[in-house]
């Protein structure tokens, strides 16, 4: 237990400093699927998602976090995708969302964070 002798503790900074974030994964994804950039955050992917109906998986948020260099939870989130491809069918920007999932699997398995 943390020493709480003085009646207060120290929180980690809640504000995200984009200068210190890692955008490697983000750049790898756009080099494989340029459509990754053209997301307008409409949320139709998440709304149509088979997995999202039963779990807290959120495809829009997953992609958004990668765009902001927040990759900590990517591996865990990725395992919830059932790879049905409904999101690809509905995306109004024509983004190959299924391909992005594939690319993420590939990148994460390279670093040993995730394997099929």
């Amino acid at each position, binding site marked *: 237990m943390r020493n709480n002798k003085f009646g207060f503790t120290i929180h980690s900074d*809640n*504000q*995200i*400093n*984009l*200068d210190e974030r890692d955008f490697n994964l983000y750049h790898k994804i*756009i080099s494989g699927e*340029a*459509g990754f*950039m*053209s997301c307008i*955050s409409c949320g139709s992917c998440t709304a149509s998602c088979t997995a999202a109906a039963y779990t807290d998986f959120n495809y829009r*948020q997953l992609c*958004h*976090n990668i*765009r*902001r260099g*927040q990759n900590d939870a990517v591996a865990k989130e990725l395992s919830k995708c059932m790879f049905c491809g409904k999101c690809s069918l509905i995306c109004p*920007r024509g983004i190959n969302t299924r391909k992005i999932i594939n690319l993420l699997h590939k990148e994460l398995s390279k670093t040993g964070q995730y394997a099929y």
Partner: protein
Amino acid sequence: MPQRKTILVIGGGVTGMEASARLAEMGYRVTLVERQGRLGGHVDNWDFLFPDRKPAANILNPLKDAINYKVDVKLSTEITTIKKLNGQFISSLSTGDFVKTDVILLATGFDLFDARKKEEYGYGIYDKVITAAELEEYFSGKNGYKLLNKDGRGKIGILHCVGSRDEKVGNEYCSKVCCVTGVKQSMKLREYYPGYEVFCFYMDLRMFGRYFEDLYREAQEKWGVQFIRGRVSEASETHDNKISVRFEDTLSGKPMKISLDLVILLTGFVPASGSTYLKEMLSLDIGKDRFFKPVDEHLKRNHSSREGIFLAGACTGPKSIAESITEARAVSLEISSFLNKSE
């Protein structure tokens, strides 16, 4: 043969120029008064235009040619007083001249919002914070020194809605054309400075016009411009001479900050400073946004609250160049039918 009807056009921007040319073509005697020493208004400060990226000169040169020798152009001239006498307007000019006309057309346009009023963005305090209009001057080479190192690396931020949709500065309206201007400029910046990433901070992206959505998509896909939904709350200088901005990335619901090498402010429209004087002198109606108010938003868009005084262009609210030119043509027809009826 009846005497030729006369028209005074106030303002020599794209609207005033186009309307003058059309009215002169119809056979009216047109006097065009412009406060500045040159024609073209704001467009003259612009390098290239959305959506087709044509140089601003490609618009201005044909407009200037069309009024050459056909319109009496008075540059560096302001209106001192306007009086109505026997159905005619008698306007005295700062040059000491008088103009007697049957109709007055107000094409007084707009001013750009003074970015100093949003002190939290640091315009006028930090060198690295400039306006979109100043950026155009860099693009066109009018503004001498280099903006950034062409081979350098870093980040550029474009802040949308500066002075628009903001009760804190008294402007609740949307300035309409800044969104697409930001998108246009973001692509040009990526082209000029490929080592710099570009971030657009927006509240809503209003791509209202034809092809605008294509520009937005091109900015994202081809040029890798990043759009962050969230209004920047403040900018401050860092020890290494960058500008640190704070914002909420509203799509992830988290407060964030980022250091930028250059900040561009997309300043919005405000009514032209000179139009306040005209409004009071002519006792014209204005809207809640302080722009001139037409008699009807649909059917009488170019009619002011006083007979014989017409309105066109951005003096009735933010408009694109294409819309201003279209309005100039529409008002020419309205003026013509008014003069035919009054004969």
